[in-house]
């Protein structure tokens, strides 16, 4: 939509409503006052010392911030450069999602709302919101597609255990896109006493700015930590991008450092040519409207929204946050895609190289770092957005599909029997799917 006006940050508040042509508030009129109210609240609270102190204390004492920045020794050795992992997987509830959920539930309380609703795909944002709602004594309903409920049973149980109601969504493919639409519809009906805790850096303004502000602690901490550890800024920072909240949080800390490259890794699914992926930025899609924002979106020639595909539920989304779209267009950030099979192998590879089981989402970023040469990079920071326990069954199933009973075959790290004998090649070392399958 090149003809859409490019408006500066909203002059009344300083919270952007647009990023270049992207963003805006494409929602039913009923919600406009609630978005205005939220924008006003955040305008005050983002610089309010009492609120910020409360959020910081909860982040520290309850969620486990700051998270470590870990120099991944064996990865670094393998790729020949310093790779630091930002360990958001160590946060309470297992992913960066808690940063946003805690902040928004705290905002809800400050706005006098006693109910929150949320959408969830894999369940990470739903669990994070249910967690924060329990902590802050709020009623909580999480909208979740029934297909995702089937695939993510343990997270459904976690949410219920935490005192949240899980509302099944039966429309469409019964996944994240439909859950988000249903949460917005529910909000239309319940807007008077309910805050919608949107989980990604998308949706109508002010959500993209709000979620970025709440997630930028990832980038701010990482910047300070890498300066202390490496004595310099990284050459690039890398994160996976579905809606893009962990990536925008990491990028935000380095936006003003022109020497630091920003690299987002999208879901390549079954391959960009297959049409079954979630790589809206990599494939250069133009803007469309989904869930209240103008941003690149997968759609047919008439404008009907299409379903995305990714092995990881968190990246299985046909849209992306509007600030990412603008970072792409302006050239500040670069976006690439990693396919399902490569991400699944990276899931195993990190587990075996570093003793860290990563989320399948983060595994996309890890594959790129591990297997795409980057001669211009000496130091980099990769966001490990979440831990992989939730993905265990699904990822192992995928590995078995690829490699049969060799999927978890163990290669001795230190072959026994005196003289060093040639060990079979590590199945992950070859990199891309094609090469690995050829073994």
């Amino acid at each position, binding site marked *: *939509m090149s003809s859409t006006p490019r408006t500066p940050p909203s002059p009344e508040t300083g919270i952007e409503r647009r990023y270049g042509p992207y963003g805006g508030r*494409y929602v039913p*009129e*009923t919600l*406009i006052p609630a978005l205005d109210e939220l924008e006003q609240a955040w305008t005050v609270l983002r610089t309010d010392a009492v609120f910020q102190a409360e959020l910081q204390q909860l982040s520290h004492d309850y969620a486990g911030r700051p998270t470590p920045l870990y120099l991944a020794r064996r990865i670094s050795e393998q790729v020949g450069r310093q790779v630091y992992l930002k360990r958001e997987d160590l946060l309470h509830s297992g992913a960066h999602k808690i940063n946003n959920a805690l902040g928004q539930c705290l905002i809800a309380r400050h706005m006098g709302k006693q109910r929150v609703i949320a959408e969830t795909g894999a369940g990470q944002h739903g669990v994070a919101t249910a967690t924060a709602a329990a902590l802050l004594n709020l009623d909580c309903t999480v909208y979740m597609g029934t297909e995702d409920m089937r695939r993510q049973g343990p997270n459904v149980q976690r949410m219920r255990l935490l005192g949240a109601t899980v509302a099944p969504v039966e429309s469409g493919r019964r996944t994240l896109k439909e859950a988000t639409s249903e949460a917005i*519809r529910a909000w*239309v009906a319940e807007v*008077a006493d309910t805050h919608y805790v949107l989980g990604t850096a998308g949706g109508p303004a002010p959500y993209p700015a709000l979620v970025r502000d709440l997630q930028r602690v990832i980038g701010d901490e990482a910047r300070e930590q890498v300066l202390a550890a490496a004595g310099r800024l990284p050459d690039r920072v890398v994160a996976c991008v579905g809606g893009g909240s962990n990536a925008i949080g990491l990028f935000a800390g380095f936006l003003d450092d022109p020497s630091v490259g920003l690299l987002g890794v999208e879901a390549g699914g079954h391959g960009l040519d297959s049409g079954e992926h979630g790589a809206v930025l990599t494939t250069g899609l133009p803007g469309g409207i989904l869930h209240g924002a103008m941003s690149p979106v997968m759609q047919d020639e008439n*404008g009907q929204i299409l379903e995305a595909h990714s092995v990881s539920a968190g990246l299985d989304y046909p849209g992306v946050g509007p600030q990412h779209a603008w970072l792409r267009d302006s050239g500040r950030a670069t976006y690439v895609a990693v396919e399902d099979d490569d991400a699944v192998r990276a899931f195993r590879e990190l587990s075996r190289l570093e003793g860290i089981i990563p989320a399948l989402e983060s595994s996309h970023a890890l594959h790129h770092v591990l297997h795409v040469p980057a001669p211009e990079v000496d130091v980099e920071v990769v966001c490990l957005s979440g831990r992989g326990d939730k993905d265990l069954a699904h990822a192992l199933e995928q590995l078995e599909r690829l490699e049969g009973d060799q999927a978890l075959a163990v290669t001795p790290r230190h072959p026994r029997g005196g003289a060093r004998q040639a060990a079979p090649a590590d199945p992950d070392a070859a990199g891309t799917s094609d090469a690995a399958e050829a073994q």
Partner: protein
Amino acid sequence: MSTSDRSTAAGTLRGGAGEERIAAAFADAAGSAALMPYLMGGYPDVETSRRLARAYVDGGADLVELGVPYSDPLADGPVIHAAGTAALDAGVTVDDVLRIGERLAVDVPVALMVYANLVMRPGFERFVGRLRDAGLSGLIVPDLPIGEESAEVVAACDAAGIAFVPLIAPTTSDERAAEVAAEARGFLYAVSVTGTTGERSALAEQFSDVVARAKAHATVPVGLGFGIATGEHAAQAAAAGADGVIVGSRLVRAAGEPDPVAAVAAVMADLSAGLGR
């Protein structure tokens, strides 16, 4: 834009020929208010949808609100959502719906109700041009609120002689209500409930507030919709001062019954009776 800028004399309306035709439909409506049924274009199939359009006209429709099936209808409740999904599954396209509208527009003014991405995809000027070419009179975009999001679409509608019809909700502030009403061409769509489309049981106590606030700011007729399902509701809406009564989910539900034409005709008869016809 202040309301004093506009003239109500035919030929100078900002919404052009489309607005003139809508204004005439309100002026000529029989009974206590205009009857404005919603048709989900292409549901349950294109041919039946054409017959239902005919039943609307025969049943006394003054204006038809023609819905376009969409994959992610954020303002719609389960009945219209499911009908849209069924139409999409059957392969119904925007062009199919516009052809239904073209035929319908011979008899009554037609306002297209369509989600913003379908308008943006071909480019809003081109999209609005297709409405004009099909003889449609108005455009309602439930996820395009008045403000910078809507400015260019409103301008394109004005240039093409299509009336842009904005919505006002129970949550809309007085200050914003004035802004929204000032942008209304043809009529102002007042949403009767805080929620999505769908039938409700008790409504009347909310009607008067919503209608009164809409009428306080509007210089065009006010159509009341969302949740109105029966002749009794229609009578209450008219009594509350609504110039037109919009009925959606109840009729879409009827369209899904075994004999949809008869079911729709029965609902139209009930609504007409409620409006004192």
